[in-house]
């Protein structure tokens, strides 16, 4: 049972507070992705679990046991570093076996575990090579192999895929996820790539400036982002936002902005008169002759199966994603509509989600 907990954890480098009072619980066996922009403290959090950074306050616990003062080697963790940190003067085999050797395991047992890891990661042909003789993806797998043989309760990954090419990245995503299913270890995976987060995570922990903004399943953070920040961060292309007001007019509740009026669900009636931000995901915008968003196409990008169409509406740009067949030409006047159930409403001041029942 290797759940990982932070209890009001704090970390400061000198006067710079990087993590301020963060509490979080990652259940045993789940795959948690720490997601956030560069410099938000993801690596720092991971290093706090690993024991490479001392907490300046609060507590970090593994398997229900406070580990603040436990040596990294005794924390039952394995870590894959942001830059792999392979031992360049050792062969792949020795890299993978290093930990087991330190543990003074029997030679037969070491061999067994190394060859098991090599099989899982398809590293067998490379066991007698040096790291410098490997490609990026192979190095990445060696780093994973080094973690794998430890049979640890908690796996820590720090942006392991960030420097690989897109194809290999997609492939490794699947491999890492399969590995997780197979081992069942609690995994914390750091990335700033929201696609990685969405595809791999059981739980997404979205961070900003050293604080948690939202914790939830990929579906939850996608469908119910709790703030403009989350809504903007998750999803690609990013959500479109409009500033306006909620109006109740007889039966109808509408969002009204300059030159824009959109029907809303009745549950927003109580919010009438409020200044809000309305958010619409690009894939929720559809072409419709009577659509509320009227504008002119300024750019049309194909991504393969889909086109991203940029539409200028007065002085704001809106992105819509449509099937490839819906191609539009530059300068064409179009109208877009959104189903009332697909809009996200945020308070204009606090930028928090407004979610009346």
């Amino acid at each position, binding site marked *: 049972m290797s759940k990982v907990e932070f209890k009001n954890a704090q970390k400061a480098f000198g006067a710079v507070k990087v993590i301020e009072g963060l509490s979080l619980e990652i259940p045993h066996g789940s795959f948690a992705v720490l997601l956030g922009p560069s410099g938000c403290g993801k690596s720092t959090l991971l290093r706090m679990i690993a024991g*490479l950074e001392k907490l300046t306050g609060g507590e970090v616990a593994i398997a229900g046991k406070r580990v603040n003062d436990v040596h990294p080697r005794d924390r039952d963790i394995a*870590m894959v*570093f942001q830059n792999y*940190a392979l031992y360049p003067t050792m062969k792949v085999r020795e890299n993978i076996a290093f930990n087991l050797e330190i543990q003074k395991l029997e030679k037969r047992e070491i061999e067994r575990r190394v060859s098991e890891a090599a099989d899982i990661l398809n590293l067998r042909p490379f066991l007698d090579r040096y790291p410098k003789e490997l490609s*990026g993806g192979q*190095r*990445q797998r060696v780093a994973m192999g*080094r973690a794998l043989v430890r049979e640890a309760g908690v796996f820590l990954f720090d942006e392991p895929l960030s420097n690989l090419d897109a194809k290999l990245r997609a492939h490794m995503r699947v491999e890492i996820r399969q590995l997780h299913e197979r081992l069942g270890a609690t995994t914390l995976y750091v990335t700033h790539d929201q696609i990685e987060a969405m595809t791999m995570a059981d739980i997404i922990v979205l961070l900003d400036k050293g604080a948690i903004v939202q914790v939830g399943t990929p579906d939850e953070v996608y469908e119910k982002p709790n703030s403009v920040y989350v809504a903007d961060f998750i999803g690609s292309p990013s959500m479109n936002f409009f500033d306006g007001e909620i109006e109740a007019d007889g039966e109808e509740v509408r969002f009204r902005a300059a030159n824009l009026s959109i029907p809303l669900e009745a549950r927003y009636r109580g919010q009438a008169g409020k200044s809000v931000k309305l958010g619409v995901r690009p894939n929720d915008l559809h072409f419709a002759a009577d659509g509320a968003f009227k504008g002119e196409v300024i750019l049309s990008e194909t991504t393969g199966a889909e086109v991203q169409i940029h539409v200028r509406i007065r002085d704001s740009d809106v992105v819509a994603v449509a099937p490839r067949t819906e191609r539009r030409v530059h300068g064409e006047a179009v109208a877009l509509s959104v189903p009332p159930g697909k809009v996200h409403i945020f308070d204009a001041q606090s930028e928090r989600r407004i979610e009346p029942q």
Partner: protein
Amino acid sequence: MHGTKFARTIRFIAAWLLVGLFFFPIYYWTSVAFRNGRDIFSRPPKIFDFEPTIANFNAVFGISFEGGVPQITPGGGNFYMAPRLWDSIVIGVGSTLIAVAIATLAAYALSRMRFKGSHHFVGWVLSTRMLPPVAVAVPMFFIYRQFNLLDTYTGMIIIHAIMNLPLAVLLMKSFFDDVPNEIDESATIDGASRWTIFRRIVLPMAKGGIAATAVLCFIFSWTEFLFALTLTQTDVRTVPVVSTTFVTSVGTAWGNMAALGAAAILPAFIFVLAVQKHLVRGLTMGSLKQ
């Protein structure tokens, strides 16, 4: 290589000119060692067309090739210089070993461990080299006399090691600084102790740095003059010091001096050759993703 053929040719010529510029003095000095007095002072100077002789080597080291067989003449020639080469080798190798060993350990500590005042340490280390050596030589003489270190291998090895330490520490530190800390951290998680990390992982990575440092230390010791002059008398004498004995009241024995110099290049050259295969670039090759 790219560029036009003309540019390539120019580059080629320039490179060889530069090599020639550096190599010519060495060639000329060495060739003087193989000349008789007339050929040394001929005007215009002879570059290639002199009559080679090993008389100088015979005089300096007592080696002759009479009958095609190398022979050591008893007494070791007029100047008896072979033991001086040996002194230089002992002092050079000994002081290099000590300086590199201490510098490596110190530099790793300076690179990785935080202790009180550690950021002042580098300045302190450097400051020991800011005094002109002459200012140190005379006090050193009295200290050495007190400790019976005058005119001994031990004394010379110690002074050369001390002279080399500051730069050796700084140099090694820069090599250790280039080893990413994540490698230490990864090994820490793997359960390795500080010493194991140092010995099994960081030290092998810093091999090139150690080789480079060793070359610098050795060459410093090999050519050092001032301390070798003041701290030795008769038992131990290094090559730079005895070179001056060829300058006498009746003239300078250029041919003999060149023979000693040419012979002195050899051990240094062999030493550098021995370590140079470790002077590889790309210390962390393959460790990181790039």
